């Protein structure tokens, strides 16, 4: 994997795209070039001075040629709220530590990266860290299906990217039923797992899931039941973001492991859910 850098990043755009959802585009050439699907950046914004810690964000899309990374973020607290106020004109001082973490498929190496039939399951902003993976899989000619859940229609902000840019079939569920099935996306995921790959009905080789922890637990149980390998991307509060402080540990069969560098992607069957 690429060496870590602390790259000064230039803010190019920062726009609302849905309910409490923003898309931020940054110029950060090294990270754009080296980041792997599932890895993240640890972001520092200078003027957030009373909030001293960095904030981790997955990279949603990249444009390696132009040296750009795109982050999709949801406003949940001080830091993400602060981010919404940044504008390219004010030229805020932003630094990204990255590329951090174990990417999707990294655990057991070649086999999974070459997976032929993959089901992606995303809840909320969990759709962001799956996009680069989907792109990579499509480029490799894998068959990719996706199930996506969100609170409401307007929160399905990544849907068109998956459908139109990548040409992936995506089934949706919304909590309020304003788009797709009403309720959680676990029902859709379950039917897909039972029915197999949308194009040929063959069983999946791999499920990759990112979203709220309860969703990931249910999906990982379902995958285990039908005997399909499953990976999940875990979130923890992070201080260093580089593996040094042990603030981000996840309980696993092998003991407490660091979400930042031993993850964020874990094999679902390793995780001891809390």
């Amino acid at each position, binding site marked *: 994997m690429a060496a870590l850098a602390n790259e000064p990043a230039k803010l190019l755009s920062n726009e609302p795209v849905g309910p409490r959802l923003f898309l931020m585009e940054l110029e950060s050439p090294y990270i754009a070039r080296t980041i792997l699907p599932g890895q993240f950046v640890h972001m*520092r914004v200078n003027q957030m001075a*009373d909030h*001293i*810690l960095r904030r981790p964000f997955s990279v949603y899309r990249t444009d390696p040629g132009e040296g750009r990374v795109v982050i999709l973020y949801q406003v949940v607290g001080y830091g993400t709220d602060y981010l919404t106020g940044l504008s390219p004109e004010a030229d805020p001082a932003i630094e990204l530590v990255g590329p951090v973490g174990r990417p999707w498929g990294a655990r057991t190496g070649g086999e999974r990266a070459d997976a032929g039939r993959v089901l992606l399951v995303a809840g909320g902003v969990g759709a962001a860290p799956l996009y680069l993976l989907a792109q990579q899989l499509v480029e490799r000619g894998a068959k990719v299906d996706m199930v996506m859940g969100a609170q409401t229609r307007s929160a399905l902000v990544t849907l068109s990217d998956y459908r139109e840019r990548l040409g992936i079939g995506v089934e949706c569920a919304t909590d309020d039923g304003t788009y797709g099935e009403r309720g959680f996306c676990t029902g859709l995921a379950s039917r897909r797992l039972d029915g197999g790959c949308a194009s040929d009905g063959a069983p999946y080789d791999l499920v990759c899931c990112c979203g709220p922890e309860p969703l990931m637990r249910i999906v990982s149980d379902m995958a285990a039941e039908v005997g399909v390998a499953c990976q999940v991307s875990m979130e923890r509060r992070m201080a260093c973001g*580089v593996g*040094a402080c042990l603030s981000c540990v996840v309980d696993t069969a092998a003991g*407490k492991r660091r979400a930042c560098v031993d993850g964020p992607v874990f094999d679902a069957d390793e995780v001891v859910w809390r």
Partner: protein
Amino acid sequence: MALAVDLGGLRMKNPVTVASGTFAAGREFHDFVDVASLGAVTTKGVSLNGWEGNASPRIAETPCGMLNSIGLQNPGVRHLLEHDIPWLESIGATTMVNVSGHSFQEYVEVIEALEQSQAVHAYEVNISCPNVDAGGMAMGCRTDSVERVVSMCREATARPLIVKLTPNVTDIAEIARAAESAGADGISLINTLLGMAIDPERRRPQLARVVGGLSGPAVKPIALRMVWEVARAVQVPVLGMGGIASGADAVEFMLAGATAVAVGTANFVDPQATVKVIDGIADYCERHGVSDVNELIGALEC
């Protein structure tokens, strides 16, 4: 300009080390800084057979600071000796190992294990961790237990023995004197201040362990005061820490009486913080016509 200092027998090429637990054993930061260029690397606290640490969440952000309740998670001294010390040796780092134990005897056993390696240059005995139930802070709050554990460690090694104190005490100078009289070659402070954070919406503590240790810029005024008090109370050198994030911060600690300083939480904010602090000290010396950094130690005018 001369930047080298002597911390109770530990020769440091500059006065800057890292605060234990914020830098692992250096490897995680080697992409950002030349770890061998630090005055010393202080490794994460290590116990005899390793500890699991506390449940998650283990950190919470607070105004200009953070709480942690890691609980000294570590894989044990064998692992350190087999994986980390050799790497530190290979890059030519000066190494101080932070030592923990659940009993006085465990401290001694950890030191005995480390005595086998020539690449361990000093010990920092942590009698101040607020995040473990046995050992740790309680031990560091009373002069009698401080004297006892320090004497026992002293017997186990001839290497520089730095004793790390907790700030959660009424009279830090008294504790420092106890450590000194028991044979400490230096005093290191401050460890974290015991604190707490609550999520009012969920009516729950933010840390699974409820309380944790406060670090970062918020604690700097307290750390600086304690370093100043201790430096005047003992003859041995002081390793100062607590919220240091810049060369100016480091200089303040040295003026207050510290011989060397450690950068802790700042590593999380800026992984290059250590070298920036070293450069900042050098800049300061240059601007102020200081030819040897030792001139700064205790040079506060008051």
